[in-house]
């Protein structure tokens, strides 16, 4: 496959499909996390410093330590593999077998960030990502994790409310599936484009424009059957 997707199959015959996320998007997610960490650090540090003086400075340093090393681990393990930055950009850390990350994997990949960060702002990490087919940095390689796009929940297609029409000639299962897919998603394109698609279906429907489109709806209603409501 050339679509950059990663296919895994489970013993139950379910195939899991992931799209690994590339360096640019992960870089943006890291930047958001970095800004957020800096903000949290300041918001914690200044009141501590004002109220507690030098003791507050000490507690602030502990907070900085946690923000630097524990931030990623806590969010990844407790937040379904997503730090706030990854959440905003629709990314997720997973184990390579598609399961959620555990403490071990997350700690490893976040501690080894120190190597990936060298020599200048993720130089080694970027190199490793560009060499690896799944965009894994060194920490990901050792921990056995991947960063993928989180799959969006698919919206339910609108129910068809038209009378079923029989197909003029039999279609192969593949063609039937394409037809159903077209009708379920045709609302996503502008009306003019929908009419063009209707024109393209002329060999099947013998009609043009909206009439052809309506005929396609009828075929699909025939293929999928009545709603059982």
């Amino acid at each position, binding site marked *: 496959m050339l679509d950059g997707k990663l296919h895994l199959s489970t013993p139950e015959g379910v195939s899991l499909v992931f799209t690994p996320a590339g360096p640019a998007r992960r870089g943006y997610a890291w930047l958001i996390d970095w800004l957020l960490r800096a903000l949290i650090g300041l918001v914690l540090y200044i009141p501590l410093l004002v109220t507690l003086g030098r003791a507050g400075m000490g507690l602030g340093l502990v907070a900085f330590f946690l923000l630097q090393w524990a931030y990623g681990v806590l969010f990844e393990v407790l937040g379904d593999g997503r730090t706030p930055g990854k959440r905003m950009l629709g990314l997720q850390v997973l184990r390579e077998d598609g399961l959620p990350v555990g403490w071990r994997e997350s700690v490893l990949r976040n501690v080894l960030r120190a190597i990936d960060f060298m020599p200048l702002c993720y130089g080694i990490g970027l190199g490793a990502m560009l060499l690896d087919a799944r965009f894994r940095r060194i920490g990901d*390689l050792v921990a*056995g994790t991947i960063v993928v796009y989180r799959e969006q929940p698919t919206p339910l297609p609108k129910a068809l409310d038209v009378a079923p029409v029989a197909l003029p000639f039999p279609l192969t299962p593949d063609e039937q599936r394409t037809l159903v897919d077209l009708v379920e998603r045709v609302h996503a394109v502008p009306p003019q484009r929908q009419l063009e698609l209707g024109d393209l279906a002329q060999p099947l429907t013998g009609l043009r424009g909206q009439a052809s489109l309506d005929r396609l709806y009828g075929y699909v209603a025939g293929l999928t059957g009545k709603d059982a409501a």
Partner: protein
Amino acid sequence: MKQRQFEARHAALWDDIAQDLKSKLPSLDLPARYRALCHTLAVARQRGYSPSLVARLDSLAIAAHRRLYRSSANQEMVFVRWLRLDFPLLVRAEWRVVLLALLAFLLPLLLCVGLINWRPELAYTVIDPGQLAEYESMYRMAAQRLGRKGPEDDVLMFGVYVWNNISIDLRTFAGGLVAGLGALVSTAYNGMHMGVIGTWLTREPATREAFLSFVVTHSSFEVVGLLLACAAGLKLGGALLLPGRLTRMAALRQAGQRILPMLGGAVLLTLLAAFVEAFWSARTDVPALVKYIVGGLTWLALIAYFCLMGRRRAA
């Protein structure tokens, strides 16, 4: 069977699974329902039902798969078990890298001790003279208060130690990935630093007692923590250099998974050292003799812990 009939027939099953996935405690039927779901997914695929239905079932199956196969929650007493058995056993099993880390620390330390006793001015080649003078004046005034003004400063120093020392541990570990060199250099540098400053301050009676009584207690946790972090890093580097019968990648992964608890122990020890260093070591109301006794006992306890703990079960 038409798609809508199929959907109507199995809608209840799919809804139940969606409910299960939302709740914190899924019902005991989830495995059976998951198998039924996989069956419906396969049927839907094979019959060429609409791609949107297949995609919906697919994401439901993935979510159920993750819920069922994620690492088991049955981990009671895992910390106590780690403390009593796993951690000391792991350190003993990996004695080679621990020994190597010890050598990387001790050799530069002893070398510096010898060199500076021979020619004290050599200390200036390692550490900036101004910094050395600062250390000296800090311990010279130690009779009153060790460079600190009150309990507030104890908390401040605690923060500094946590921030600085644990970060050093973690970086030392990560540096091990560079064929072990990063970990070795970091450990050797720390050994050298300690050798120079230690010798410098113990040469003069004015600072000797203050310095020794200050470091004796927390140095046990701190040094052992650093050594274990280094050893864990060396294990990573070792997997890269000598992967044995595995590919380098597989060896690295195996080593990473295996050695991580040692890094956890190193961090914990260093945290303990930060506590002791901040709230006990600098106390001036405790006589030096008491500090020596306590420090000696901690050293003994730590060595005994790593040598003896968990032996009976292991045999």
